[in-house]
């Protein structure tokens, strides 16, 4: 396990230090014990990760419909499902939306999360209480949150537009969830709200890791404020930033509940992403093969980012 992973996994609270040297045992019994410890994890992975992934991949090449459930027959159709999925007029839109949604969400979540982490890094009265309050969005069930957000964003009676009415320079009410241009923005805003706690918490953990002495030494050389951030905080935070961004991208690519709860992919497919499209094909049109094909496309995209993550991680260790 790498030192970067240790830090992140424990929310940055693990004390830094040299890894403990592994104790070597040559006795056969010891080896058996080691294997016995590994088996549950391995079985878990195969059962709950391996099987679904393999099943999803094969399903993408099968005609898998309601009939399949009763007869058990799912004829192989090669790439037909992929062709259906990719040539669907909604696909291009969904792909673009997935990109915009991911980039928009990550930019917002990361910037605000980092600002909040930096803010709380200077301790002040009640900072602990406030910091834990920040976690609230995480605790609200998404179905409840999206119902409340729908109410907030309602064009005619929503509290947001009623507040905007008070602004003198704003003419007319923005149709947050019903205009094809604004709906994606509204969905991104809600997803940013949802993602801030994750970003802030992990970045805050990363900030705790930076030794105070560096700032003291820096301040002697005249590096305070923005300069200290640029030359001390940012370089030392880079490992954590990479993790936050890559995990953020992977989480955001597959977001489903936020969009289903707010707009169900509408209006007029304005917020349809690959994941909502896949959900629709599988569970509304019962075309599980095409749904799985879309899911696999999404997995492939995520995989690219996972590889980027591993690469960056390796480079960080090499350094």
């Amino acid at each position, binding site marked *: 396990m790498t030192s970067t992973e240790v830090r992140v996994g424990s929310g940055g609270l693990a004390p830094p230090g040299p890894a403990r040297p592994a104790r070597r045992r040559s006795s056969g*019994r*010891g080896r*058996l*014990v080691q294997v*016995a*410890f590994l*088996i*549950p994890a391995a*079985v878990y992975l195969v*059962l709950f990760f391996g099987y679904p992934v393999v099943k999803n991949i094969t399903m993408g090449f099968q005609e898998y*419909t*309601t*009939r*399949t*459930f*009763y*007869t*058990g027959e799912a004829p192989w159709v090669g790439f037909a499902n992929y062709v259906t999925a990719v040539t*669907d*007029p*909604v696909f291009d839109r969904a792909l673009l939306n997935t990109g915009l949604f991911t980039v928009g969400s990550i930019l917002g979540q990361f910037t605000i999360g980092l600002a909040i982490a930096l803010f709380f890094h200077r301790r002040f009265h009640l900072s602990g209480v406030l910091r834990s309050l920040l976690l609230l969005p995480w605790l609200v069930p998404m179905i409840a949150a999206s119902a409340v957000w*729908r109410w907030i964003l*309602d*064009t*005619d*009676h929503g509290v947001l537009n009623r507040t905007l009415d008070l602004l003198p320079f704003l003419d007319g009410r923005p*149709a947050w*969830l*019903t*205009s*094809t241009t604004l709906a994606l923005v509204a969905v991104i805003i809600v997803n940013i709200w949802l993602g801030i706690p994750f970003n802030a918490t992990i970045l805050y953990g990363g900030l705790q890791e930076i030794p105070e002495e560096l700032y003291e030494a820096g301040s002697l050389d005249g590096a305070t404020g923005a300069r200290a951030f640029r030359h001390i905080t940012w370089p030392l935070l880079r490992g954590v930033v990479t993790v936050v961004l890559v995990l953020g991208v992977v989480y955001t690519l597959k977001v489903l509940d936020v969009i289903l709860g707010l*707009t*169900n*992919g*509408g*209006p*007029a*497919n*304005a917020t349809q992403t690959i994941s909502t499209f896949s959900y*629709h094909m599988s*569970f*509304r*049109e*019962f075309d599980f093969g095409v749904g799985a094909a879309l899911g696999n496309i999404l997995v492939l995209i995520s995989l690219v980012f996972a590889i980027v993550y591993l690469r960056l991680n390796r480079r960080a260790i090499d350094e």
Partner: protein
Amino acid sequence: MTRFSRARVAIAAAAALPLVLVAACSGSDGGTDGDGGGDGDVTELHVLDYYNNDPNKTVWQGVLDACAAEVGVELNRESVPGGDLIAKVLQMSSSRTLPDVLMLDNPDVQQIAESGALAPLSQFGLDPGGIAEGVLSASTYEDELYALQPVTNTIALFYNTQVLADAGIEPPTTWEELETAAAALTEGDQYGLALSAINTYEGTWQFLPFMWSNGGDEADIATEEVAGALQLWKDLLDSGSMSQSVVTWSQADVADQFSSGNAAMMVNGPWNFGTLAENAELEYGIVPIPAPAAGDTVVSPFGGEAWAVPQTGDDARMAVAAEFVQCLVGEDAVVDAAVGTNTVPTDPSLSAAVVEQVPNLASFAEQVPDLRARTGELGPEWPTQATAIYEAVQNALVGGMSPEDALAQAQNG
């Protein structure tokens, strides 16, 4: 060996325990397959439905119990939330644990029949009686009847009696009157009309009476007739007589808007009587959905659920289940269910007894002989076309497309 390492072995053994359990579980799976005996007396039926909320839950319990008594069996009833039913049925299909009696939303019947999970009712000699032609077509797949539907519902135009009286406006009967009335009734926070143009099958369902009454057909929606209906909706929205939020409102949202006075009229169904009754001050009337022109016939889709006998492989139980389903479309069951759940009989000859008790149902009962099945023409292909319809509606209403372009894109997709 030290005590320490013995402890480690114990922990390792404990860690491996779940494995053994998993193996044991999967081993016992095969044993439960052959339940249901098959020979001799059938004393109990497993019933699955989605009437999991009152009043439907309780009313149907009464209807089911009465039929169980008549057939002479005990009931083991399971009610799941509406959205979970199909997933549950598919799961049961693949694990061969289908119930003896299954309720399905009528547009889903052909889909499930196509999968092979349902038994054709002709093999039990069931009699559909006087059930309307349109209703039977939704339960029929490849010339075989697979389910019987006792009661149905559809949509109509609800209007706020007080608001219309104050404005001196009569309930509209044609599209032209609808547009004029909706415009005149729009003022301040109140819109003239509310309906659901949401991007789900609910939105499609609400659009169908307009499209069908204008001569449109679901097999090809890139036609003048369908475009005409969509143009009506677009005009209502563009003129401000409807809120732009119609593209996100479910029918329940529409009922809330109407009940709270934000809309003077709405397109909705009788299942909202309960919600509307909560507002004691609200007085409303119901008329059929306006026709394109005076004298035109209004063709609406029908809702409601049908009862089927799944292929459980146990002939004795299936025969008793069929008897039970026959009882559910009998006069007593139909009238009790209709009155209790604000629905109308699928057999028009039974309507009078229901309307006598619930006069508000009159305009729904009238439409039964003309009701059209959503799946009558396309069968299991319906979900794909239903998606195309609501997408076209949304593209025209808020996507900046003309009705013709939106429909052409949806049809040729």
